[in-house]
């Protein structure tokens, strides 16, 4: 188990280095091939040539890419100082870059916005796991029943609706029409009730989409598992149906669900871009979207790294959980 963990952590670290390289490639090489001046895009559209030149020098943009990537990597642990002549900007460790457009270091932006996104993703995940998996299991057990057919119609509609459209519909209906909820984000530290009230609609909207996907997958997996020999054996030896379903069938049904959960949760924690922009939540997704609109590359880079990291970690946790849940899986 320990050896497995160490190997996986090592693989995750390698993957992260690969991702840093790819991200650097995307932001520094692709524009170069395409003939776009990166320094200019760091400064702004109407920048004067002197400012562009200053940024180019500060960021070492004329250096080879691997040197730039190394500087970036070093900055995470040691901090960085960008200096041209008398103009000095210090970015203390952990330095994930410095945004010259908004004149702030990237790391504080990330830590400010992370709790919002984390709260959104975790709250929604609880909802969609409970409702999606329950609906899927019930459908599989009562296959062809009225419940099964209506649940699957709703699920099919759920996966066919763009999330920002359901979000806008729920805003128009519940926040503007019925005035049940306030569509206003309140930080958790400020007021627990206010935070909860502001998050209910985003949670439900996000959870609806994922619950629909999970219900479909759970139903299909559960039906497949119920046809397995070991389920017949469990029934044949006289176990109660509740034990057969709840213990024997559920365990292997949950394996693919967990895989999905790892990927989905990891990606959401790195920024639920569509949900955050629909509900105007100040999370990582909104930060990256604003950064993209302003062509603020250092912030995009920081968020991409955080997202990749959370996807990798979530996948690792899921793989360890496999061994706990599914008795057929042994980690070696």
């Amino acid at each position, binding site marked *: 188990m320990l050896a497995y963990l160490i190997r996986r952590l090592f693989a995750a670290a390698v*993957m992260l280095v*690969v*991702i840093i390289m790819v*991200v650097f490639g*995307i*932001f520094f090489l*692709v*524009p170069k091939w*395409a*003939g*776009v001046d990166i320094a200019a895009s760091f400064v702004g559209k109407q920048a004067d040539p002197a400012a562009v030149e200053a940024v180019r020098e500060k960021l070492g943009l004329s250096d080879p890419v691997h040197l730039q990537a190394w500087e970036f990597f070093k900055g995470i642990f040691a901090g960085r100082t960008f200096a041209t002549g008398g103009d000095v900007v210090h970015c203390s460790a952990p330095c994930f870059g410095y945004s010259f457009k908004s004149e702030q270091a990237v790391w504080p932006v990330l830590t400010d916005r992370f709790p919002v996104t984390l709260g959104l993703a975790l709250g929604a995940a609880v909802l969609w796991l409970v409702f999606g998996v329950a609906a899927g299991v019930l459908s599989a057990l009562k296959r062809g029943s009225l419940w099964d057919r209506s649940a699957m119609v709703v699920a*099919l*509609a759920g*996966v*066919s*609706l*763009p999330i*920002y*459209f359901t979000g*806008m*519909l729920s*805003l*128009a209906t519940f926040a*503007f029409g019925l005035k049940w909820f306030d569509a206003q984000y309140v930080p958790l530290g400020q007021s627990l009730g206010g935070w909860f009230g502001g998050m209910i609609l985003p949670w439900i909207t996000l959870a609806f989409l*994922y619950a629909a*996907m999970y219900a*479909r*997958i759970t139903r*299909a*997996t559960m*039906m*497949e598992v*119920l*046809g397995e020999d070991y389920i017949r054996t469990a029934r044949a030896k006289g176990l109660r149906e509740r034990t057969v379903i709840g213990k024997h069938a559920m365990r292997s049904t949950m394996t*693919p669900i967990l895989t*999905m959960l790892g*990927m*989905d949760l*990891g*990606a959401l924690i*790195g*920024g639920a*871009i*569509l949900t955050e*922009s*629909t509900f105007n939540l100040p999370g990582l997704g909104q930060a*990256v*979207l604003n950064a*993209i*609109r302003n*062509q603020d590359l250092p912030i*995009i880079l920081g*968020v*991409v790294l955080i*997202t*990749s990291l959370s*996807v*990798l970690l979530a*996948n690792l946790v899921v793989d360890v959980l496999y061994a706990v849940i599914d008795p057929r899986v042994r980690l070696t």
Partner: protein
Amino acid sequence: MTAPLHEPTAEAAPSAIEEAAAVGGNAKPVQGRSLGRIAWERLKRDRLALTGGAVILALTLIALLAPVISNLVGQDPDAYHEDMIDALFGTPKGSLGGINGDHLLGVEPVNGRDIFARILYGARISLLVGFLSALVAVVLGTVFGILAGFFGGWVDAAISRVMDGLLAFPQLLFIIALVSVMPSDMLGMTGSSVRVFVMILVIGFFGWPYIGRVVRGQTLSLREREYVEAARSLGAGRFHILFKELLPNLVAPIVVYTTMMIPTNILTEAALSFLGVGVKPPTASWGQMLSNAIDYYDSDPTYMVVPGVAIFITVLAFNLFGDGVRDALDPKGSR
């Protein structure tokens, strides 16, 4: 967002052979039928899937004939109708977002462009990106999947690692990042056509591992079959075995995963345009209409509902059709 993870469902049911015999009728002697024929017979009996297919066909026609249809109703997607707009609020005059005999689905707030005409033109972008990016994914996924499965060894290891890596990437974020760093003019194209071209390539690129993994898995099991052995012993070359012997047997999973992928791609295009990194104005796109409508969800709900429903119907039709194709091609399926 999660990409298509739909596994073909295995349903405990009478085998295809028994079923084929039953359908063959009592009076007529049992005839051998090809797998494609069996699948088609099953698909023909799946009314939901047929409805989905009919809607897809209709949407394709609408997209192809968008200029003709908008001419017929006498509306240009880019023409302003400021006389339709309430000067004080900027919202359309009249009820339901300005729906009347001229403007079948109302007009946009502020500039009064005809929503019906813009929906027609938006269908072109949605379907173009949806189909072509799936094509890119299928070509890449099939080629790399079949190579990985057939040659094994380091070829397989390398391709599999790349696929795993791509699947672990936060895709929407990378797609947004890639689309946004692309220049606004390239290869002699400008404006929206660049964006459409880039979206097709990028969405297709992030989609190929889904097909690649399935093709690889199938190839692994198929290459050990007797008929491949037979072809090899008759002196067939690698190229012949790959493309004449293996590929025809991979068509079913490829078709299933392609039909599953198109609706996801359509949603991704809409999301990109919604976020402002898709097609550029004034080109009409459903996602972009929704993103403009977000400021008017209380004062002009029609503007939001029309493109939302358009996306919904399109994606639903593809999903229904995809589910039907999957069930029809599933050798274990009963329907």
